[in-house]
């Protein structure tokens, strides 16, 4: 081992590029945004200091609470349905049966498609006059159940959740990458001990995937918190704010040039997300090495 000094120099030098870039394009704008929440800013030019008015306004805003609630249910669905499904797919794929590479490619490929295409497809699946769901319902004689799924107050939000919950490809492939990097010896020794496939999965693989699964949970929850493009195209929060989320509401406020209120919503988004991330990190003991 070399001296501590070499180590210290390495730490500093290796961190500099990331910290500089991160500081310039994340920390700096973020501090600016937080600062502007205390000012009036409803035109191009910023107005005067207004203290906590924006925050008071936010806590009296009904739409804010709807958005918060939607974000919460989105995050829970992501944690408890989306990622477990991804984990299951990854485990099934990791058995390397014939054709697994093809399937892996298929799982990943749709992520190259832009959000616009995704949104347009789902709008057509839910379309009230010729959409897939209503057509199928009519075909099997359940025509009475037909509705305008995305614009019925009762079904709008579940329909939105349905647009992504089964698209597990990305996380399945990430988790798969981790499974494949588990040393073969571990499985070999387990096989000598006579462990079956499912047992292997539960006793060896899954525990070793703690870190990556936790990372995926954080990625999907935070990704969901930031996501708005598809929502914007599909419903833009309608009907009656049923499909509003914080990120979307924030974007709408930017469009209305209510900059400082939008940034206040951004701060709320940050706080909400941080809560989830910290819980997630504690839950999955992230950052502790497996070795």
């Amino acid at each position, binding site marked *: 081992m070399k001296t501590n000094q070499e180590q210290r120099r390495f730490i500093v030098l290796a961190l500099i590029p990331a910290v500089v870039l991160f500081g310039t394009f994340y920390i700096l704008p973020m501090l600016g945004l937080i600062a502007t929440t205390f000012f009036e800013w409803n035109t*191009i*030019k910023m107005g005067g200091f207004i203290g906590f008015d924006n925050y008071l306004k936010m806590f009296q805003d009904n739409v804010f609470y709807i958005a918060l609630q939607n974000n919460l249910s989105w995050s829970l669905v992501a944690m408890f349905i989306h990622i477990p499904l991804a984990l299951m797919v990854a485990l099934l794929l990791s058995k390397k049966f014939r054709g697994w590479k093809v399937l892996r490619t298929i799982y990943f490929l749709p992520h190259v498609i832009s959000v616009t295409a995704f949104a347009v497809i789902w709008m057509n699946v839910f*379309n*009230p006059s010729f959409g897939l769901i209503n057509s199928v319902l009519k075909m099997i004689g359940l025509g009475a159940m037909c509705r*305008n799924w995305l614009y019925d107050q009762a079904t709008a939000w579940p329909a939105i959740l349905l647009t992504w919950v089964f698209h597990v490809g990305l996380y399945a492939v990430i988790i798969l990458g981790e499974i494949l990097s588990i040393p073969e010896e571990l499985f070999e020794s387990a096989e000598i001990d006579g462990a079956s496939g499912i047992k292997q999965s539960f006793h060896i693989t899954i525990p070793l995937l703690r870190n990556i699964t936790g990372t995926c949970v954080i990625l999907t929850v935070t990704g969901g918190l930031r996501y708005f493009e598809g929502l914007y195209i599909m419903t833009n929060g309608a*009907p009656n704010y049923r499909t509003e989320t914080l990120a979307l509401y924030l974007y709408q406020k930017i469009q209305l040039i209510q900059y400082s209120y939008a940034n206040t919503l951004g701060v709320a988004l940050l706080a909400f997300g941080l809560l989830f991330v910290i819980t997630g990190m504690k839950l999955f003991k992230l950052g502790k090495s497996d070795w």
Partner: protein
Amino acid sequence: MKRVVLLVIVTFLMVSMILPQTSIFGANEVQLRFLSLQVGVHPEAPWLEKTVNDFNALNKGKIKVIIDGVAGDQACWEKLRTDAAANTMPDLFTLKADRSEFDVLAQSDRVVDLNSYLKADAEFKKKLNDPGSLETYTYKGKLLGVPYAKAYVGIYYNKTLFAKAGINSFPVTWDEFFAASDKLSKMGVAPLALMTGENSWTSALMLAHLIGTSGPEGLKWLQTSPKDQKFNTPVFINAVKKLQIMLNQYTTLDAIGAGYGVAANNFLQGKAAMIANGPWMIGSFSDPKSAPEGFEKKVGYALAPGNGVIAMENVAYATGSKTKEKRDAAVKFLKYLTTDDVYAAYLSVGGAGPCFQTDLSKVKYPAINQAFLPLAVKAKNQYTIVPNAVKPAVIDALAQLLPGLADKSLAAEQFAKQIQEISDKN
């Protein structure tokens, strides 16, 4: 490996630095950035390109206009207002008359006042002689743009479908309108192509027609400035009640949540018999990519029942240059835009009405427009669009509340009350 990676990076850096350098030639040339949405599939894109190329050729070595194209009204506006906030205004841009855009830019103080140029050039001043148009683009005594297009918006209707339903002429009163809608609807055709998505455009136009033709009160309502607007009024509520009937009975199933594309397509495919929209739509009637062959012959363009038409200033061209050199060059381009040939070509494509004196004999309006314009100019009730009479947040709220109005879970009075709350809060 390391070397290969480094080599690749260096090569790409070099390539990317060499490739897009533009100002190698003509160091004395003034370059003007023209932020425009008239690009891509926009029908005015060829006109803009030709105009800019001709202008650049005329001023070779001195001025070069470069089109910074951003397709889509919303994306283009996002760029423009970000530029305004970051103080990097484009040298030339389209200044919309919509209050939601015009007021923001006017207050930002980043648009060049053209009055001094008008004073310096008597001919230019004489040319821009339409006081109404000039006033639209004047803010606190400053003229912020060269008025360029004025639109008359009525209602397009499908003559074939009307004939099939036994309706001989376009209804002149709202009672006749609803009777005709009933006939069309019984025939299995949706009478109206409405939409509640995006900015609820075609629905908001119908709302303007309903309010504008309801009498002097209605005309006054549409002239009220957004911050003083009241929604708990009989004028507004009565119009909303009629809109509710339209949304509930007389439109397509997919109107709820539909964007403009869906609404337009319903009309173009003959699924809906009427659509409220402006002259910019005429091109799509004869475009094989949007409509069946021969569709343009089926379309009529009529005033709204109650002898009404939306008369709106549409766009002006403006400059945001910071240096005098660039300002002068930009104004030179603006003057070039007002020359007869350039303007005639523009009016022929967009179907808009002129905002200043020009040789109209050179304008080749589409047949549909040719018949409609004289009627529109003489219409008894002329009014503006709803977005100019309400706050932008109210237009956003339409998309939220119209679905409820359509399925009758929200009554017109409640609707008005909620809109009022939103207007007060924003």
